[in-house]
């Protein structure tokens, strides 16, 4: 018996599919499968195989269907793949649909009692008596529910050939020194492993095998990466109101801050305030930003809408604040646990009247970190709200990434006058464009000088921060604000990333979490003899690089994850002269965008 699986696998060697397929684990939420899936993913990662993990979960706490997908890709493709090759069908509610959704000749592991094999003949089924096996681990009712998930890890490991050592490592990592938990889970894995080894005849082609493509890589979700960026930006006031999928930005930041930002006598160098709602959260962040702290809040769609009035206030009164918008599917409550890029227009123009905000748009978890660093600098340098436009896919899913670099630049705190400066200057005009770049000087409360104070108001104000209703004062102020944002745009905002292809007849513009799918799609397009240029936007407003790119291209596919072609709208608004070249490619069903979808749409439009 012991050798059956091994033998079998050798026979089929010629048609093996190695390190390039996707595993889907279907469970119900609240069942504790997250740890198991993490362990599974990390073990693969530790074997040097590029992986990405995506959690498709309901807006609910427990008992509803949840799917976790792990994609393995030697080429390092990290985007969502609609094809699922290898299924662990633990959820009776969805098992039939799940099996139906499998790719051709897929594999299905399922509890024996579900009797799934009948559904599809082309699928290779491994039925496992989980309920019996779990009794070998524990008879504690609560624990059983949890450890059953580790049993499938063992089964999968055995079938795919995941190294046991790496599973052990991953479990140790997952349960972080908690010996009892480690033992129990290891035991469960072993039982799964053993059962599979002894009872299953491997007839499927899927295999993993150690390579070395993850050296120096990490796995992290975008929200934790944003949190790291914030901590290393020196954030000191964090205000928030929980909302999926932004919650974990603040929750992981709290963890980091508690670990790394206490003084020796356990005093905090930060304040985290859970506000009563988003109006309060942004108000608090603005108060702190005015007072000279690096302050932030994080939210998602509905919270963004609620912040509209205050964000306009901060824009007009020139108060720095960083706002993370982890986009989910809207409008309204929409689908809180699904991803989209549907807030681009709202965030960019947020608030009534003439407002336009600096946005940075990370395209990877690495950029979640690095653009957050930039966001805090930009907010203080330009004394204005800065949005970090992430999304659920980037924010809550697990991504492989290069390790993050320690910031090379010191904090840029912008134009702040000290008591000494004030002494020298004699007089201080809060809203005067002294340097011709549109950026005025400010003072902070606490500056020990009787001339430090000034009056912030959301109504019309002069250069001296006094009240005015004079038409020309208003025009001057508004023109200066434009100029200020222009200075940012021309010199300081994160530049787009441009990939030019030789002989490319077509060009692509994309942004944010679409990057991985776009890169993958470009490879497929090249294979279909359609070479493409690609510009990935990393900030708003759009700068000259974008203009040049538009100018040099004939047709430009603007790829985005929303219904209304929001970024295309923004591009058309900012470069009306070039707008006729734009073609919209949209994906907005709430699932992360995938390469084949893009490929197919572009192919159709090219024909």
């Amino acid at each position, binding site marked *: 018996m012991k050798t059956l699986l091994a033998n079998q696998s050798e026979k089929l060697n010629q048609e093996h599919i190695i390190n390039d397929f996707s595993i889907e684990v279907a469970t119900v939420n609240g069942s504790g499968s997250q740890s198991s899936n993490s362990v599974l993913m990390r073990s693969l990662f530790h074997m040097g195989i590029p992986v990405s993990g995506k959690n498709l979960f309901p807006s609910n706490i427990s008992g509803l269907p949840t799917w976790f997908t792990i994609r393995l890709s030697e080429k390092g493709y990290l985007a969502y793949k609609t094809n699922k090759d290898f299924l662990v069908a633990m959820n009776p509610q969805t098992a039939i649909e799940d099996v139906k959704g499998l790719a051709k000749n897929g594999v299905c592991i399922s509890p024996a009692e579900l009797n799934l094999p009948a559904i599809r003949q082309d699928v290779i089924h491994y039925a496992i008596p989980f309920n019996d096996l779990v009794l070998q681990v524990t008879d504690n009712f609560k624990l059983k529910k949890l450890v059953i998930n580790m049993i499938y890890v063992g089964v999968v490991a055995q079938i795919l050939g995941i190294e046991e050592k790496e599973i052990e490592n991953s479990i140790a*990592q997952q349960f972080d020194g908690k010996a009892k938990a480690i033992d129990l889970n290891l035991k469960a894995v072993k039982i799964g492993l053993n059962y599979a080894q002894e009872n299953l005849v491997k007839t499927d082609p899927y295999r993993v095998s150690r390579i070395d493509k993850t050296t120096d*890589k*990490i*796995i992290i979700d975008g929200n934790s990466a944003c949190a790291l960026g914030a*901590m*290393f*930006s*020196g*954030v*000191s*006031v964090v*205000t928030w109101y929980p909302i999926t999928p932004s919650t974990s930005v603040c929750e992981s930041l709290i963890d980091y801050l508690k670990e*790394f930002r206490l*003084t020796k006598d*356990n*005093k*905090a*160098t*930060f*304040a985290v*305030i859970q506000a*009563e*709602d988003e109006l*309060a959260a*942004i*108000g*608090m*962040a*603005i*108060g*702190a930003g*005015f*007072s*000279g*702290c690096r*302050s932030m809040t994080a939210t998602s769609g509905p919270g963004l809408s609620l912040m509209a009035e*205050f964000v306009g*206030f901060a824009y007009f*009164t020139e108060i720095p604040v960083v706002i993370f918008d982890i986009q989910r599917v809207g409008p309204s409550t929409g689908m809180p646990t699904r991803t989209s890029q549907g807030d681009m227009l709202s965030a960019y123009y947020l608030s009534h009247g003439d407002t336009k905000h600096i946005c940075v748009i990370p395209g990877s978890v690495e950029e979640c970190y690095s653009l957050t660093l930039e966001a805090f600098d930009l907010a203080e340098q330009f004394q204005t709200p800065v949005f970090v436009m992430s999304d659920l896919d980037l924010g809550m899913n697990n991504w492989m990434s290069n*390790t*993050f670099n*320690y*910031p090379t630049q010191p*904090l840029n705190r912008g134009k702040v006058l000290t008591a000494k400066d004030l002494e020298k200057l004699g007089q201080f005009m809060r809203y005067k464009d002294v340097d011709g770049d549109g950026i005025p000087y400010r003072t*902070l*409360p*606490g*500056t020990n*000088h*009787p*001339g430090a*104070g*000034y*009056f*912030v*108001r*959301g*109504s019309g104000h002069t250069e001296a921060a*006094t*009240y005015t209703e004079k038409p020309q004062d208003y025009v001057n102020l508004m023109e200066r604000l434009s100029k200020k944002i222009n200075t940012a745009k021309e010199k300081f905002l994160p530049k787009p990333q441009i990939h030019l292809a030789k002989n490319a007849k077509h060009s692509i513009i994309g942004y944010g979490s679409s990057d991985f799918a776009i890169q993958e799609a470009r490879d497929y397009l090249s294979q279909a003899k359609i070479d493409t240029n690609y510009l990935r936007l990393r900030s708003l407003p759009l700068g000259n690089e974008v203009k040049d790119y538009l100018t040099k291209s004939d047709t430009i596919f603007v790829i985005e994850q929303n219904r209304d072609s929001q970024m295309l709208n923004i591009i058309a608004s900012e470069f009306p002269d070039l707008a006729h070249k734009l073609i919209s490619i949209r994906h907005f069903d709430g699932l992360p965008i995938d390469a084949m979808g893009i490929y197919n749409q572009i192919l159709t439009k090219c024909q």
Partner: protein
Amino acid sequence: MVSTTNSVNTNKLGLTLNEYKGGASTMCDGCGHDAISSQIIKAYYDLGIEPHTVVKLSGIGCSSKTPAYFLGKAHAINAVHGRMPSVATGVNAANKQMRLIGVSGDGDSASIGLGQLCHLIRRNINMVYIVENNGVYGLTKGQFSATADLGSKLKNGVINDLPAIDICGLALELGCGFVARSFAGDPKQLSPLIKAAMSYNGLAILDIISPCVTFNNHEGSTKSYKYAKDAEIPLQELGFIPYFEQITVDYEPGTTTDVEMHDGSHLRLKKLDRNYDPFNRQSALNSILDAKEKGEFLTGLLYLDEKREDFATLMNTVDKPLSALTAEELRPSKDVLNKIMAQLK
């Protein structure tokens, strides 16, 4: 006489009253808000507080404009309508050493801003919070606000048929540690109350009836000068002795209570007709309800709790203001990043 440097026209810092003033008021002549501004100016002057150590905060409304008319050299944020409490919270979190004063209206605080006000009370932010209460939205021309009394009448004859939200009752219910009610027409009472509020370490709420002479000072209004004057029943005679002045003991024990505030100042309460205990939350609540039933307008210090910890204390932050932290204190070292990265591998 000990002091020689302080002439009669300057305070202990050597500043004149003028240096505590702000821009010219744009209130209507006779507006209660101006009377309150004068008392605020006087309080800062008397207490010898440096203007630039103060942050003035307000929302939107006639009342919320008034910070522009006192303490011209202070820092100030005139925020959006009804949401000053959150801004104040952020300022306090960033710099707990600044002295905060918020001025709001009944519309700003009890209509649009009610939620934020309640949560400000709950958090006990260290600040003086003044509601210049005229029962109407002055700036938008006199519609009823949520503090308008049941049955009170607008100039155009419209009668309010909803019960008033009582700022003091609400503050007490939510556990505010300093609750007082006063009247813009009673400077003698207002002055010590404002000073005591400034010396209090936590949220001090002052609900001050401040008649709107343009829209709510007529017959039928319950927030007019006349109505307030006629109905006012002061609970105590108040005196305030700042920490830097010598305390005299020239009062009859039994009839007078002397409370030491957090900063060492003393608030002296001399009993009047009623037997009122301002240190008992429950009886304060009861008195307010009683008075409401009888149509009485109780003023004075309604409640004082010197023990409640303010928000900044609960936050357990370093001693200096967060806004004064250096880059070194704010940005963890490269080792920290490396450590975190290692854990993520």
